[in-house]
């Protein structure tokens, strides 16, 4: 009975299963096979012994991260900034996408989209240089404008830690908003316009239409993207936090995150086991959060959840 049931399901779903097989096989080879190598996090890795031959040392490799005197700071900064990024990104991208949708001039729309899109492909090194041109105390443009407006004296932004709580999310938003807005825009474009016509006939005004139709339609996408972002909440965009502050240590209280700490600690040691341990820890924590968030979302609306 059970056997034939299994086969029956398999047979019924065979085409759909076939559609997924290339991806499944790909993920198996590229991601799952190497995954076995993460046991190096629990070993003292020696080149001449290889991954399997090296000695087990339990959780030793995790100590440098977990016992760090800076642990509270880097965790606070990582989680704090990522939360701000998720929220601000969501609000800003959806808003911009909705506004894009309202534009009637297609040519100008294409222009705006292209212009907003390019920062995503700049490396943070370049962005850091441009920010430096803006913010440096000697010849930075921002300081010039501020003095022109009557502000007292040039501000040494690269030594003033608190201001980076604003600078970093702004920089991140600048870089990502183009791409995020386009994704949401593509979703909006897929809404059957008969819904809008029906709403207009019923006498709804613009704001109501947006609130009652467009936003709910985007809800599944917003949920998925947020859940995925939460999975990565313990990882920071290394380029952003390392390059943008130009490595200035006086800013560490607000710019040091888990990944920059790991980089600084391990750069002279080249210890494969330790870096693997750090990565594993972040993955496990992120995983737990995602499963939790997903379970909550599933309670409310099982279609919007990830799995």
């Amino acid at each position: 009975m059970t056997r034939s049931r299994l086969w029956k399901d398999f047979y019924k779903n065979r085409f759909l299963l076939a559609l997924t097989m290339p991806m499944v096989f790909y993920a198996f080879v590229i991601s799952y096979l190497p995954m076995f190598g993460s046991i190096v996090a629990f070993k003292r890795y020696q080149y001449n012994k290889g991954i399997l031959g090296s000695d087990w040392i339990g959780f030793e490799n995790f100590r440098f991260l977990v016992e760090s005197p800076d642990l509270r700071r880097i965790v606070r900064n990582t989680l704090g900034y990522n939360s701000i990024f998720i929220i601000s990104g969501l609000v800003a991208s959806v808003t911009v996408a909705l506004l894009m949708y309202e534009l009637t001039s297609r040519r100008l729309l294409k222009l705006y989209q292209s212009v907003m899109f390019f920062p995503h492909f700049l490396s943070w090194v370049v962005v850091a240089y441009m920010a430096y041109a803006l913010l440096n105390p000697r010849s930075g443009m921002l300081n010039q404008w501020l003095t022109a407006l009557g502000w007292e004296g040039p501000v040494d932004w690269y030594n003033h830690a608190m201001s980076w709580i604003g600078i970093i999310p702004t920089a991140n938003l600048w870089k990502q908003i183009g791409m995020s807005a386009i994704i949401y825009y593509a979703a909006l474009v897929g809404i059957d316009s008969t819904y809008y016509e029906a709403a207009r006939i019923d006498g709804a005004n613009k704001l109501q239409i947006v609130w009652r139709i467009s936003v709910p339609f985007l809800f599944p996408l917003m949920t998925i993207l947020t859940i995925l972002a939460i999975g990565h909440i313990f990882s920071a965009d290394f380029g952003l936090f390392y390059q943008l502050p130009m490595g200035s240590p006086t800013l560490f209280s607000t710019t040091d995150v888990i990944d920059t700490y790991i980089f600084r600690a391990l750069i002279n040691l080249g210890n494969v086991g330790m870096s693997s341990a750090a990565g594993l820890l972040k993955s496990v924590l992120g995983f737990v959060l995602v499963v939790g968030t997903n379970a909550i979302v599933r309670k409310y609306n099982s279609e919007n959840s990830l799995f």
Partner: protein
Amino acid sequence: MVGAKQSRLAQLAIHLFFIGLSVVFIVPLWLIVAISLSDEADLVVHGYKLIPMTWDLTAYLYIFDSPMTIVNAYKVTMIISFVGTLLSVLMTSMCAYALSRADFKYKRFITFYLFFTMLFSGGLVPYYMLMTRYLHLQDTYAALIIPLLGPIFYIFLMRTFFQQLPESLVESAKIDGAGELRIYFTLIFPLSKPVFATVGLLQLLAYWNSWDSALLFINKHELYPLQYLLQVMIRNIQEILANMQNSMAITDLAQVGKLPTESMRMAMCVLAIGPMLFVFPFFQKYFAKGLTVGAVKG
């Protein structure tokens, strides 16, 4: 009448908003182009300026100096970009579609299976060993294409889009006796143009800008993709400059003085972003409203 005036006002307001927003994006873009066309000495002494004090093509000339290498790099990049994008969009969309169907039995398991790989990874060393020692892919086009073939993020993105297509479409097609593949190609695909365009564009750009795989797997100069070649150029310059304090190094001073570091960095950006601005309009025409008009009824 009132409605028309209101909407014109609203349009104006929205335009103003976007114009203001665009300034924040156009100015840096302009700055990048301007710096790439500036004389290096001016940059050193006077810093970044929106209009170059001296127009100068040295950075570009330096990059294109050995035409064979860069022309070749363009060729490599174009091949991997087009082939890679085509294959990956095909593979990920097929999978995403299957996962979007509520009646697919293995949906949850496969979603979890794929999602897991987004968070967990074995690290660089096992991955490198797999690609070079077991699959023997070093110095091949495959090594440049394969790593970017299956971004899980896009699968979930597309799955969400597919989920929002009306179920009645598929049902009625099935009643008509269409097989799964037919449904996919003749029905789902045309209705999903915006999302295919989005993912296709993003993948194309990802391939265009990729250089990690080249760093790991490519040693032959003929197989250097564009971005990696540029990275190598810039880092070689940095190496020469770093060695200047090491007084035992041989330096040809006339050359060193002219090394266009800043302007070259920006020229690299222009070469990276430039093609995108040409490719973008091509994809934008698929962001058309009204694709699904009447789909429910029809």
